[in-house]
């Protein structure tokens, strides 16, 4: 614990983590049931990162995330129903059912995806920040990506460009120690990700991503740096994925022991304990929370179930903006 805990804040952080956890447990169940298809990448185990960081961003800050973005969208405030509907492929989903799990979008919250090419979001984030800087807007663009993305050339190019032009980009690396089945040490010759920022003269820090308060504190500091106009910041969250990479994954690349060791550091469990220890959380709080979330999920599923399919006639709608003068 890095801070004394205030009850309201503490409960809210726990609630957000629990929302993600329960939502995704439901997703896994619905995937088995065939309601959700395609690729489904669960965030379970990493909830402290989204829950601890996203609430710090202003409404007009931008967020760019990856295919493992359920938690980010939930905490950002997109209605759970429209996310569930998206997973169902329904027209009332946050991308009209065209994106699915990997491609959540929400323009009203400046949530730019849900981009599923590894590292493909970094250049876009650099550009969003450039637009803000050129228009003298005090906004920040937060760009989430995994440890695997660090190996891609775009990581290198984007950090250089953002630093060269002193752009307000917050590079947020969710280092869960694996890129699919490839352990960090098997894809990085030098595994200190935060340390790589030096090559660009970029400030950076690494923080325990299983500790929601540590995540919040480190993110707030990084955000202050970026908002202060001092250019980009690279923050590395050390976290861990409890589930398979996606739904099909024999997990041959790591031991059950390793996973259970990390589960002892389950961000929900440990935070719940510290809240109890601090005397700010009681059984009835948790029961109430679980009940509210269960209801929210029920309603989200109902919303998805009730949602319409996009008419096939609309298949090519929005490939281009309609009715545009080309002369």
């Amino acid at each position: 614990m890095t801070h004394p805990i205030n009850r309201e804040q503490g409960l809210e952080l726990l609630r957000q983590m629990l929302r993600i956890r329960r939502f995704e447990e439901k997703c896994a169940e619905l995937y088995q049931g065939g309601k959700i298809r395609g690729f489904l990448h669960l965030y379970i185990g990493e909830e402290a990162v989204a829950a601890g960081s996203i609430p710090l961003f202003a409404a007009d800050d931008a967020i760019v995330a990856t295919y493992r973005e359920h938690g980010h969208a939930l905490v950002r405030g997109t209605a759970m129903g429209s996310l569930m509907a998206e997973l169902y492929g329904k027209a009332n989903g946050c991308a009209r059912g065209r994106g699915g799990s990997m491609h959540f979008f929400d323009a009203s919250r400046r949530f730019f995806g849900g981009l599923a090419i590894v590292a493909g979001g970094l250049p876009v984030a650099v550009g969003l920040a450039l637009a803000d800087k050129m228009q003298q807007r005090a906004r920040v663009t937060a760009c989430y990506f995994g440890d695997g993305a660090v190996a891609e050339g775009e990581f290198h190019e984007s950090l250089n460009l953002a630093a060269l032009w002193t752009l307000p980009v917050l590079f947020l690396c969710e280092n869960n120690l694996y890129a699919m089945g490839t352990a960090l040490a098997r894809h990085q010759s030098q595994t200190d990700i935060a340390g790589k920022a030096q090559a660009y003269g970029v400030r950076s820090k690494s923080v325990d991503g299983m500790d929601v308060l540590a995540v919040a504190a480190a993110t707030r500091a990084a955000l202050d740096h970026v908002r202060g106009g001092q250019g980009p910041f690279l923050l590395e969250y050390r976290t861990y994925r409890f589930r398979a990479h996606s739904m099909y994954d024999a997990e041959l690349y790591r031991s059950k022991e390793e996973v259970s060791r990390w589960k002892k550091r389950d961000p929900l469990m440990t935070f719940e304990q510290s809240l109890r220890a601090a005397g700010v959380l009681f059984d009835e709080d948790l029961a109430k929370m679980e009940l509210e979330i269960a209801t929210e999920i029920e309603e989200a599923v109902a919303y998805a179930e009730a949602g319409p399919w996009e008419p096939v006639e609309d298949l090519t709608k929005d490939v281009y903006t309609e009715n545009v003068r080309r002369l």
Partner: protein
Amino acid sequence: MAKITYREAVRAGLREALERDPLVFLMGEDVGKYGGTYACSKGFLDEFGPERIRDTPLSESTFVGAGIGAALGGMRPIVEVMTVNFSLLALDQIVNNAATIRHMSGGQFSIPLVVRMATGAGRQVAAQHSHSLEGWYAHIPGITVLTPATVADARWMLLTALEQPDPVFIFEHAYLYPMEGELEEGPPRVDICRAAVRRTGNDISLITFGGCLWKALEAATRLAQDGIEAEVVDLRVLRPLDLDTVLISVRKTHRAVVIDEAWRTGSFAAEISAQIGEQAFYDLDSPITRVCSAEVPIPYAKHLEDAALPQAATIVQTVKGMLCAS
């Protein structure tokens, strides 16, 4: 004849390649510990060791370029790019180095490189994971482009490819991995220079490749129920193209439909249509038609994805339209 899945066929080909030549090695994302995204190399890391089964970082441009360098250095690399979608990141190395160095150097260097990748849509993985870009590869002089659609081709094309002194690209349709098929015993090594007639018929030629072969065959079966005998030609090799087999079929049926999972405009189907038009214009009784994907980023929702892709039903419709018209 033994039943085997397309995945097992790819696997068996890979294993034989690794067993018979110590210079052959496999590298790519998650080919090792993970066992291959499509489980094609499951167990190989233990079997052949980390020197020959190399997990790479997510650096498509560099590990494909490293495959080029390793080939120049005398190895026989098999580079697996997880899917064609990600191969865009390596396209510069492919176009400007792999395909070019032999000619540009006046024939001094050979690049015996094999690159495998999964291609195609149909599994609801949405716009960034559903591309069919084989047609782009078929545009590049200096490389060979293979599209195994049967278990036999999945099993044997790799081995012939590994005997080539120049780069060969093999596109495995992701949808086919679980497909079962009959595989003859013994190594009836397959060529990588000819198209194959998968079904004979006199009324119309359905020309296709890769994942669409099975949709074309299904369409042919349905058409037969209405007395229409369609011939189905599997191109197998997109570059260099075996047009003769196509022409023989079209000169017999006088009608052709080209089926391609790529977006219609600029698809490889256009090239086939153009070449038939150039070579067999006077043999045609009606315009060549194409059944391709709708010009749209492939959507996630099943009903929309189905509507975007070529389907047996669309092929049947198209054929009937052509035969009624004339």
